[in-house]
């Protein structure tokens, strides 16, 4: 399957006059100043300054890439899959037909809420304010706002997604309950302690600084609020391991390039981060077996006439992302990629 798609990819690149992988230039990097051969202290300072500027450029490139990817692809996704841009939750080993996926995506939201021990529709304890971090076109925001009668704020890097999210909210009579803005999850534009529920559904994998990401989730959470993170991780490392094996890193790198992902971490890493922020009732689980039908289904829809024509019309970033989908299946099969849920609670004052 992947060789078929890579041939297809090369043909597409030639067809649209896009650079092939050998021609593609490496991203612009801030030129390092030549290190002066003076005292070691100076050399280290200069090297550190050059490195942090390079990091800034990298982060900015990543953010722009993410915004452009989703500006380009959200319409295609919505056309074929609807307004939830996340995995569905399926029974293990279920045989799933194409029509089951939407309810599976909704089930994913409900299962995540249940895992986090969120109270049922008891009016006294349900969340009144919610933040959807990495909100896509607002599927979760609208669902949660409707479920709890709550006010939901969504943030995303993609201006196109914000416009689509707002339009969908207006269409569904939720314009008074949900709001969206273009903002960075690593620097959320909210005052401290605003939200009773902090929701991150498959956006954590885009965050270049996991500590900053988690700190912001904790900062905007109100005392007693629940934080729910559903995200792609790599497998936990064994105590003897320093890092993933080279072949594993190679596979993840290919996926990272196409999906605009920074380095992956494990769910154990997330648990450590949450613990370091003194968050309580930390729970984590591996839900990989419950999402297995998802990528095969996405590939199947991409290969339909509607899927292919939509992809061709969308843009190079979307196509590149689509070509890499079989690698996600490979990653799951090799127990390298884990679909993880991590939840916790912010302490009461």
């Amino acid at each position, binding site marked *: 399957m992947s060789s078929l798609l890579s041939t297809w990819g090369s043909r597409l690149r030639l067809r649209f006059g896009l650079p092939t992988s050998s021609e593609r230039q490496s991203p612009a990097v801030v030129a390092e100043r030549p290190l002066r051969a003076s005292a070691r202290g100076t050399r280290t300072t200069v090297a550190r300054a050059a490195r942090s500027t390079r990091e*800034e450029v990298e*982060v*900015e490139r990543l*953010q722009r890439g993410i915004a452009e990817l989703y500006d380009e692809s959200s319409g295609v996704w919505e056309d074929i899959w609807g307004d939830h841009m996340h995995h569905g939750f399926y029974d293990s080993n279920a045989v799933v037909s194409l029509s089951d996926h939407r309810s599976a995506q909704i089930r994913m939201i409900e299962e995540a809420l249940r895992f986090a021990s969120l109270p049922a529709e008891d009016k006294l304890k349900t969340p*009144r*304010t919610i933040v959807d971090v990495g909100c896509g076109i607002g599927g979760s925001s609208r669902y949660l706002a409707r479920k709890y*009668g709550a*006010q939901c*704020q969504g*943030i995303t*890097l993609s*201006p196109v997604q*914000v*416009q689509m999210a*707002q339009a969908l909210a207006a269409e569904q009579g939720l*314009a*008074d*309950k949900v*709001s*969206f*803005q*273009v*903002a*960075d999850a*690593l*620097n*959320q*534009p*909210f*005052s401290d302690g*605003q939200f009773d529920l902090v929701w991150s559904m498959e956006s954590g994998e885009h965050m270049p600084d996991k500590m900053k990401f988690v700190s912001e989730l904790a900062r905007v959470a109100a005392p007693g609020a629940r934080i729910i993170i559903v995200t792609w991780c790599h497998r936990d490392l064994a105590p003897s391991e320093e890092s993933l094996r080279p072949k594993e890193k190679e596979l993840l790198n290919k996926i990272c390039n196409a999906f605009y992902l920074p380095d992956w971490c494990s769910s154990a890493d997330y648990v450590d981060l949450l613990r370091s922020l003194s968050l309580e009732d930390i729970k984590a689980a591996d839900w990989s077996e419950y999402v297995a039908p998802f990528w095969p289904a996405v590939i199947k829809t991409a290969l339909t006439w509607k899927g292919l024509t939509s992809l061709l019309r969308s843009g190079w970033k979307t196509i590149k992302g689509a070509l890499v989908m079989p690698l996600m299946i490979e990653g799951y099969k090799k127990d390298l990629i884990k679909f993880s849920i991590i939840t916790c609670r912010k302490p009461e004052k």
Partner: protein
Amino acid sequence: MRLLTHNMLSSNIKGVTSGFPLRIEAEKVVEKQVELNAAFLKNMFAKIEWKPFVDASRAMGYAELPDEAEPLMLESDEFLQKFHHALLELHLEEGALVCPETGRRFPVNKGIPNMLLHEDEV
């Protein structure tokens, strides 16, 4: 952008100690009618910083809100109507939100605020 949203937003530029509330520069304000939901409004009232909310509504061209408000006032239909209107029906379509400390403008276009910080503000 509605005033409910504005009441939650703050400038988190590096070094800024009080980035709330953002000052509103209104170029285009649009009114969009929305059904009044008393229960929702009562829930939200507790979370609203009232003085910034009143100031913001004046910047949007609405001067009917009282300077101070207490939960008891939610029993009055007239107050509820004004609260609802200012909170949910006034939309900043074009303009900017300004950081109270640094003066940095966060643009609002087509009703969408862009709160992304530049690399040197982080």
